[in-house]
Structures are given as structure tokens and as C-alpha cells.
């Protein structure tokens, strides 16, 4: 599938190079998030500039960008990318720098440099959307006491039943340590030691028999709806969609949420660098970032953007309570440490895979 | 030779339909004697194979009963019927050597190895393929493969051997050679044989008796000579050997002899079965029994006009028109002094009453 889109974009790139040089190729994630990007950024951008935008989907990772950059044939212009990948791509020289001075200031004139929380942005990225991995449960399965903390996710005695969990170490190791009593600030320091890693896996061990692993973001809401699991980790936007658009009786436990940011990057050497920068500048304004939250419950990373969050475009409901960065949801929230993960991801993946088979 | 009353196989009121609608065999009665070589002869599609398959147990009769040695075989599966079968395309197992092919029926019977070797040896001798035991069927010629198939059907000494057009795929010379071999093997072993062919020549060569099939019905069962000399049905007269057929109406009847109006002439004929005056009949006259310039003993003489003459080495085929109908064939042996006739000539031809058989007219 991906190869086909790759091939077609190759053909398209070859074609458009001669016919219409000014078509921007934006690569994002598809699904409901992809539609938000289209409505919040792409349509207004086309209206404002008249530049054609071609949207493509991908599944993350740097592999395709690396292939394009190394072959000198770059046909992706702007890519919507998780911050850890953006940082790595930036370090490896696969991405153009996006100087923070070129990003628009906040509505009140605060320069962009002061408007992004420290460490939330790669030097090669603009934009800035935060999503959260949270635990959600199906109300109908808990007629009595309802789980409310991350500890409850790991407590099979109090809340028996199977748990859904994404089949990767990222976030899950953090969840395990938080639920095991490690303070937020110490999570990554603890993970930096062998004992800490062992502790995280030991905590995961306590529910291992009851875990149903998922792979794609669409799976956990479905598993909850099918009552295949009583609780599951999930992306908050997906659960929001199920709650609001499909009226599913799901509840999000914001306690212990782990936030990950994503940004917009430019593969090094795109022949359409100008319009790529133009698009990033457009999408990085507080208004544009806040516009995303009219369609899906992901937060702008910019402080000023968060202040502009209003109501859901299609249903009119107030979005604030559903946002990862909303104050009431942030009482116990961890920002994923992309530096730690960049250093340890391969090893953690191996250990996690070993743990899975044991 | 076994006694004529020793019946081994009986088809009793057998009917068969594959699709529940059309009757392939409407009502068949037939018996095979022990040690006999019986051939089912008939054109393609006349139900011979069906007959054989029911006997072998691969098809079940729609109604009626098949008995072997006096007992119904209705509930006997093929493997229990003790019948060796030779298929048209040999059906040798290509992944086994000739020896293994022959060994197969012995092994499934749990025969001891020494006995197996002995029997295989003997069977290969019978079909004159000694020394071929280690070849694979694919390495043999068509004739050799057919011999293997025969050997395989004989090696376990079945009570009956069935063969379905076993020589159909071979060329004429080979076919004739194998016919003689099959006959001598059968005579030598005294095994009961039911043999299917559409080739009347072959049937004549091989059989003790021949059952002539047409449209699922047996026309006549008889020894080859009888079949040739005394056909009782128009179909048999036509199918077995050459025959001139003349259609006409019975004018007078006198004992077994009748006079038949054919065109503007009157022909005297021998009645196979009693016919009424006025009945339509068909007269069968063998071409080789017709003579030129007949002498006085010939009860039937008629003027003929020679249309054509074909020289065929040992004889001449003369096509003449009699009773204003063309294509009456006269076969003249090629011996010195014959001839002196040419196309266009008018001659007188004749035949005896015994050589002119009046059969019921079966034309629609």
C-alpha cells in the first residue's frame, strides 16, 4: 500500500515537476487526525495562498525520508512528525532547520521562542500538537466503583478484567513506574538504571496475563466497545472520537497521562523549500494550532494556542475538558522524554520483545 | 471347455440412468459363461462401458441385479469383486516401476514376497516383458504399457478380467498383434473375459461370443460366425461386416421363405422370424455372396447396371444399380479369368435364397 503511494507520488512528482511546480506535498497520519489537518490547515492555506496541496499518509518513522534525502530525490515537502523522530532526523541531517525566529509570534506579540514550552520542539520543526496516551475504560463494565487512577489500571484485585496495551515499550514503561510510585520527575532517571528497568518490567508482569496487545490506534476503542477489554491504554483523540461522535460510554483516566508532541518538518533538499516554509509558518500560528482542536482533542503546544481552544466544530461541545493540556487533566502528567528514548529505544525494544515472549 | 450351462455372470433386468432422466441402459439381460471370452460390441455411446463399470462396481445399476456365481454383487465394493480390469489408457501408476505396478494387487492382498516375485515373473512372461520389471511406465512404448496393464490385471488371478477398449490407442499392426496375444493368453489361462470394443474386426478375432449393443440395447448375442451369417436384427446386419440392404414389402409367405417386393422386382428371401404378408422388411445380402452371370440354381437373379468398379487387390468392388436403386455392392474375388466387365455395362447378378435374409425393418 505504502509502496503504491510511494510509486504514485514518484510519478506524480515527476509529472508535477514539469507541469505544476507549485504543488506542496504534505505528509500526515490520515484518519480523523488527518481530516483535522486538512480542515484546520490545508483548506485555509489553499484559500489564502492559492498553492495546491497534495496530502499523503504515512505511518511514522524516518525510513522514507532517509531514502528520499539519500537518493537526492525529495518529493515530500512537509511532514507531520513525532518530536523524537524530528529530533533524530534533525541530528542526522535529514531535515531542514526551522529557525524559531521565522515562526509567527503569539497574538499578544510574544516571540515564538518564548511561546513554546522548553524542550517541546526540535530545531527542525514548526507547528506543535500534543497528544496523550491515557487509560480509558468502558463505563458499562464498572457499574459500581470506577477506576480513576493509573494505579487502578495495574490493580487486578480491585478492577478485574483484561487490559489493552500497545505492543511497544514507549509509554508503557513510564506508566509502570508511575503506577509503582515513582515521582514524575524521577521516571526517566529511574529508567536510566538497570534496576529501574527491571522494576518497570516487574510492574508490567503483574498484569501480563490479562493484557490484550494492540498495534493500530483504531484498535483500543473497538476493543472497549466489543468489551474485549475492560480498560485500555489509548490515544486520547481516538477515545474522544468514540465518546463524542459515536456516543460510546467511555471514560478517560487523565491521571498519569504521558504526552507526546509532534511538529511539522521539511525533508532536506526539497525543491519546494519556499512554499514548505510558507506552510509551516502558516500552520504554526496560535490560531492555526488552536484550529486543530476544533476537530480533534489534541492540544497546541504553544501556550498562546492553548488559550484559544474553543468548541468542537461539528458538535459545538466545549473542547477544554477533553484536551491533554487542559489544567484539570494535567494534575499528574508526564512529558515523554525524547532524548532518553532516542538513546534507549533499540535496547528497550529488544528487552520488551524478550519480555513479550517470556 | 466348460459346459454351456455354467453361467458365471448374469445381468438381470438391469437399467441404468446417470442423471435420473435419460436411460442409458433401459433393460438389459445378459449372461457370461465361465471361461468364456465375451465381447461387448457397439458404436460409441451405446452403453458398453457403463455395463462394464457396473460389473466392476464403479457404477451402481438404477434397477435390476448383477449376479456373479449366483450371488448378487450389489453390496460388494470394487476391491472385493475379484475382477481384473484393463482400462483404455492403461491407468498404470506412473510413479511405480512395472514390477511395483504388478506387485500392487499382490501386496494389498498381503501375499508373501517370494510368492509375489514368482507371480510377477510369470505374469511378465505371459505378456513377454521379462526383464522390464525395473522400468517405469513412462519409459515403455504404448504396446508395452498395454501389456503391463494386462499383466497387472492377470497377476492376482482374478475370476474375471474386464477390458475396456484396451487397444483403442494403438496403431493397427500393433493392435492386431496384441489381439492375438490377448486371445492366446485368455485361452491358456481359461479366465472369464468381458471385453469392450467398437471394432467388429477385433470382436471377431477375439471372442467366443459377441454381444452387439446399440442405444443401450443388446441386439444379438452370438458366436462370431453366427453373428455374421445369421444376423437377426437390421442393426447387426449393418454393423457386422458389409451388407447390402434392400427395403421392401412381404408379398407372399411360404414356410420360412417369403417373396418381397423391392422396387419393381420380386426377391425371394429367408425369414429370420415370421413375417406377415404386407409387412415391411429389410433384406440383407452379403456382397461376397452375389455372383455375376448366375447359373440356374440361383433363385434370385436381376439385371444390374455397373456404375463403378474399385480394384482392391484381393477383390473387386463393383457398384451396381438394381431395382432402380444405386449402390448395391458386389464383391468379386480376384482370380484369373474374372472380369471382362466395365462400368456402363449391363450384367445379370444373382444370389441364393439362403444368402438373402429378411429382417424386420427398423427404420423409423
Amino acid at each position, binding site marked *: 500500500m505504502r509502496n503504491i503511494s510511494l510509486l504514485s507520488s514518484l510519478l506524480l512528482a515527476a509529472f508535477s515537476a514539469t507541469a505544476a511546480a507549485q504543488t506542496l506535498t504534505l505528509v500526515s497520519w490520515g484518519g480523523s487526525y488527518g481530516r483535522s489537518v486538512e480542515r484546520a490547515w490545508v483548506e485555509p492555506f489553499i484559500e489564502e495562498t492559492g498553492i495546491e496541496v497534495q496530502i499523503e499518509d504515512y505511518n511514522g518513522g524516518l525510513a522514507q525520508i532517509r531514502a528520499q534525502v539519500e537518493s537526492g530525490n525529495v518529493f515530500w515537502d512537509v511532514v507531520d512528525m513525532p518530536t523524537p523522530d524530528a529530533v533524530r532526523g534533525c541530528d542526522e541531517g535529514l531535515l531542514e532547520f526551522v529557525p524559531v525566529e521565522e515562526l509567527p509570534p503569539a497574538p499578544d506579540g510574544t516571540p515564538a521562542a518564548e511561546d513554546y514550552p522548553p524542550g517541546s520542539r526540535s530545531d527542525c520543526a514548526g507547528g506543535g500538537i500534543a497528544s496523550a496516551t491515557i487509560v480509558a475504560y468502558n463505563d458499562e463494565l464498572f457499574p459500581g466503583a470506577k477506576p480513576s487512577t493509573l494505579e487502578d489500571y495495574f490493580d487486578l484485585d480491585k478492577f478485574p478484567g483484561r487490559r489493552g496495551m500497545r505492543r511497544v515499550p514507549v509509554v508503557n514503561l513510564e506508566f509502570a513506574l508511575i503506577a509503582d510510585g515513582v515521582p514524575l520527575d524521577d521516571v526517566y532517571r529511574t529508567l536510566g538504571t538497570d534496576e529501574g528497568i527491571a522494576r518497570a518490567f516487574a510492574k508490567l508482569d503483574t498484569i501480563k496475563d490479562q493484557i490484550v496487545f494492540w498495534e493500530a490506534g483504531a484498535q483500543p476503542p473497538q476493543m472497549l466497545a466489543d468489551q474485549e477489554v475492560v480498560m485500555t491504554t489509548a490515544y486520547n483523540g481516538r477515545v474522544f472520537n468514540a465518546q463524542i461522535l459515536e456516543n460510546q460510554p467511555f471514560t478517560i483516566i487523565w491521571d498519569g497521562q504521558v504526552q507526546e508532541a509532534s511538529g511539522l518538518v521539511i525533508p532536506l533538499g526539497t525543491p519546494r523549500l519556499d512554499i514548505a516554509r510558507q506552510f509551516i509558518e502558516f500552520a504554526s500560528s496560535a490560531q492555526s494550532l488552536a484550529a486543530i482542536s476544533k476537530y480533534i482533542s489534541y492540544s497546541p503546544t504553544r501556550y498562546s494556542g492553548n488559550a484559544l481552544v474553543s468548541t468542537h466544530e461539528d458538535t459545538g461541545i466545549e473542547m477544554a475538558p477533553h484536551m491533554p493540556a487542559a489544567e484539570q487533566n494535567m494534575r499528574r502528567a508526564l512529558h515523554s522524554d525524547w532524548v532518553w528514548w532516542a538513546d534507549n529505544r533499540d535496547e528497550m525494544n529488544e528487552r520488551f520483545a524478550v519480555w513479550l515472549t517470556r | 471347455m466348460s459346459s454351456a450351462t455354467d453361467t458365471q455372470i448374469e445381468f438381470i433386468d438391469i437399467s441404468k440412468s446417470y442423471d435420473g432422466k435419460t436411460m442409458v441402459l433401459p433393460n438389459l439381460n445378459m449372461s457370461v459363461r465361465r471361461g468364456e471370452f465375451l465381447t461387448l460390441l457397439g458404436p460409441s455411446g451405446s452403453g458398453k462401458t457403463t455395463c462394464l463399470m457396473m460389473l466392476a462396481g464403479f457404477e451402481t445399476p438404477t434397477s435390476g441385479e448383477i449376479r456373479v456365481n449366483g450371488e448378487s454383487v450389489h453390496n460388494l465394493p470394487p476391491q472385493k469383486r475379484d475382477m481384473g480390469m484393463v482400462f483404455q489408457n492403461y491407468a498404470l*501408476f506412473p510413479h511405480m516401476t512395472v514390477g511395483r505396478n504388478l506387485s500392487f494387487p499382490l501386496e494389498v492382498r498381503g501375499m508373501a514376497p517370494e510368492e509375489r516375485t514368482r507371480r510377477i515373473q510369470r505374469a511378465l512372461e505371459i505378456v513377454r516383458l521379462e526383464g522390464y520389471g525395473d522400468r517405469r511406465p513412462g519409459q515403455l512404448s504404448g504396446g508395452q504399457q498395454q501389456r503391463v496393464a494386462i499383466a497387472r490385471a492377470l497377476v492376482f488371478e482374478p475370476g474375471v478380467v474386464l477390458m475396456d477398449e484396451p487397444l483403442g490407442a494403438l496403431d493397427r499392426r500393433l493392435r492386431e498383434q496384441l489381439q492375438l496375444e490377448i486371445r492366446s493368453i485368455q485361452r491358456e489361462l481359461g479366465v472369464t473375459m468381458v471385453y469392450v470394443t467398437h471394432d467388429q474386426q477385433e470382436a471377431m478375432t477375439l471372442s467366443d461370443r459377441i454381444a452387439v449393443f446399440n442405444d443401450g440395447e443388446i441386439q444379438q448375442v452370438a458366436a462370431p460366425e453366427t453373428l455374421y451369417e445369421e444376423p437377426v436384427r437390421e442393426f447387426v446386419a449393418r454393423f457386422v461386416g458389409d451388407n447390402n440392404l434392400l427395403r421392401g414389402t412381404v408379398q407372399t409367405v411360404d414356410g420360412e421363405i417369403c417373396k418381397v417386393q423391392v422396387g419393381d422386382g420380386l426377391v425371394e428371401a429367408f425369414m429370420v422370424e415370421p413375417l406377415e404378408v404386407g409387412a415391411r422388411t429389410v433384406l440383407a445380402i452379403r456382397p461376397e455372396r452375389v455372383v455375376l452371370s448366375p447359373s440356374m440354381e440361383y433363385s434370385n437373379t436381376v439385371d444390374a447396371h455397373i456404375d463403378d468398379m474399385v480394384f482392391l487387390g484381393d477383390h473387386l468392388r463393383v457398384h451396381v444399380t438394381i431395382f432402380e436403386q444405386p449402390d448395391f455392392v458386389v464383391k468379386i474375388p480376384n482370380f484369373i479369368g474374372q472380369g471382362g466387365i466395365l462400368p456402363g455395362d449391363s450384367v445379370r447378378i444373382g444370389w441364393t435364397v439362403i444368402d438373402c435374409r429378411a429382417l424386420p425393418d427398423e427404420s423409423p
Partner: protein
Amino acid sequence: MVNPMTDKRLRAALLAAPLVIFVAVTFLAPLALMLVRSVYEPAVADSLPATLNALAEWDGRDLPSEETFRIAGTEFVALNEVRALGSVATRVNRLQSGMRSTLLGTARRLGNDPPAGSWRDAMIDGDEDWAEVSTWLAIRRAGERITPRYYLNALDLDRGAAGEIVAQPEDRRIYVSLLWRTFLISATITAISLALAYPVAWLLAHARPARAGMLLLLVLVPFWTSLLVRTTSWIVLLQNQGVINDLLVVLGIIADEQRLSLIYNMTGTIIAMVHVLLPFMILPLYSIMRTIPPRHMQAAASLGASFWQSFRRVYWPQSLPGVAAGSLLVFIMSIGFYITPALVGGRTGQLISSMIAYHMEQSLNWGLAAALGAILLLLVVLLYLVYNRLVGVDRMRLG
């Protein structure tokens, strides 16, 4: 004067050329590239020539000299300025977790604030990893152009301090067991497919044409259904609260608490993959069985063999080429299967391909992905050779 023979050959060559080129470009070249990548890793050597040169002299026991620290530090800073240190850091990090931030952090610090005095002290002050011998060993080892380490890693091995081959720590030994599991699951899938496909192929081959056509259609339907649709239906059918479990509970065959785990585990992978791969078993079987005359079974019966004797001795041996082709095809395809196990495999139903995909797409450790791929390739080729010995490829039909 054109020799007609040469002309003919030329024309044949021209006709075949597009395919040959296509295969060379889309298959042989990537394959060769992959094999090269699995042993050849020049990036670090090309980027850090001076440092590696200095480390070549080093005894590997005590910390390197001040001079080496200076050369290395200078080189890190220079590389970082041209944005080339990141890919070096990623590669060294594979040998020792944490080296990425150590290298990038050090380069940033040294670039902003070049040491006035000892480079050694400055670097160790900034990151105490530099005081570890293992750090330097990792850099030196990462600088090898031709390296067996991807193959070692793919076999859960590593090299110790003195370069000797040692087993990975137990909590990182994953690939060998995954390979085994892949083989076991693939063998199971092949066996089940064969058991299910054989009777169907038999029916197809020997049924009347109209009925056979219908059946063939049914066999091919999975080909035409999108993977996502199929996955969804498996989930609906197989999950804990799914149709099959509900049915079993309603029928009283199992109690409500005993619902079977049919998906998100190895069972799920096997069921789903058998479904996907069944046609690849049926079609070769069918094409072979069609060449086996039904007369053979009748002949065997007339020779006195029971159905099972006839089948075992006459039909089965003749169908073996189809069995071999189908099994080989299904087995090889299962080994490389990726999406289905990812979606329905849960914890225990993952295959080695998931790791290869991870290293291709996420970790960008293409060398390790290539080594894993090469090992799979080798095993498949071996298997093929064995099959060839046993069955003969010329007798094999693929449909």
C-alpha cells in the same frame, strides 16, 4: 549480411530484456544491496577518520591519551557543525545505549565552549561516560567498515571487551527465539493449510466443471477481499466476546468464564494466516491433481485396494509435487508475513518479520534488518534445496 540465427537470438534477447531489467532493478539489485549492508557499514569510518586512527594505536585497557581525546573532541565538533554527527551517534548508540546523547551533548558543549586546558578533563567533566573504556571501545568497534556484528546481533551474540564472541545478556536475546517461533508457526500454518486444502483441491480437481467453477470462486474470494475487511471479520469472529465464543457458550460447550483466546495470540496469527494463505496451497494442489486421472483410483480399487490403500499408495504419491509446491509457497510466504501477525498476533503471535520491519522503518538499523533478512533468505534457500532434492523442482507446479 545478417545471420538469421543471430537475428533470432537477438530478437529473443530483446523480448526478454524488459523483464530481465525489471527483475534486476526491482529484485536482484536490492537483494545485493541488502547483503552488502548486512556486513558493510562505512558511515562511522568515513566520518571519524582521525579519531579511529588515533584509537587504532590504543591498547584498549586504560583510557586513551590526552592527544586522542583532543583529536576525537575536535572531530566531533567539526562533524556536528556540518550536521553529520547525528548519524554517527545513532550508529555508535547501537553498540552502547546512551552514546547518542553522549556524543551529541559533548559536541555541543565543546563547540560552544572549547576547552582551554585538558580536553580529557573537559570531556569527562561534561559527561562521565568518557571515563569509561567501554565508550571508546564502542567507538572503535563502530568504526569497522566490514563487520560481522549485524549477523552476531541477529543470532543474539555480541563481542566482548577483547573482541571475543559472547552471548547477549539474557534479557536481550530475542532473535533466535523469534526465528524459531517463526519457523514453528510457519510449519504449523503450512500443515494446517495442507490439511484443509487437500480435500478442497481434490473436489476442485475431480468435481464436475460447473461445481468446480463455483468452488474455485469461493477459494479465490479471499484474494479479492481487502486485508482490513478480513481482519475486522476475524476480530468479530474470534475475539473473546466474538461470534465463535458466544456460540460455544450458548451451546453449552464451554462456560462463560472459559471463553477461548482465539485472537491476539499465536492462535490468532495461525488462524488468520491460514485463511490468507489457503489459496496458495489449493491452487498448486489443484493443478497437479487435475493431471492425475481419476481412473487411477478405480484401477487401484479393481486391483483389490481399499480406498485408503489406493489413496496412500497411488493418489498421494502422485499429488506430492503439488503438496511440495504448495507447502514451499505457503511456508516461505508465512515466514515473511508481517501485517496479519501485527494486527492479530498479540503477544505470542509475532514473527521475525515484525522485528525486520521495526529495524527497517523505526530504528533505521538497516544493517541488522539486512542480516536478519539474509538469514531468512539463507534458510529459505536451504529449504528450497532440500525440497529440490526430495521432489525435484521440475516436477513442481505452482498453479
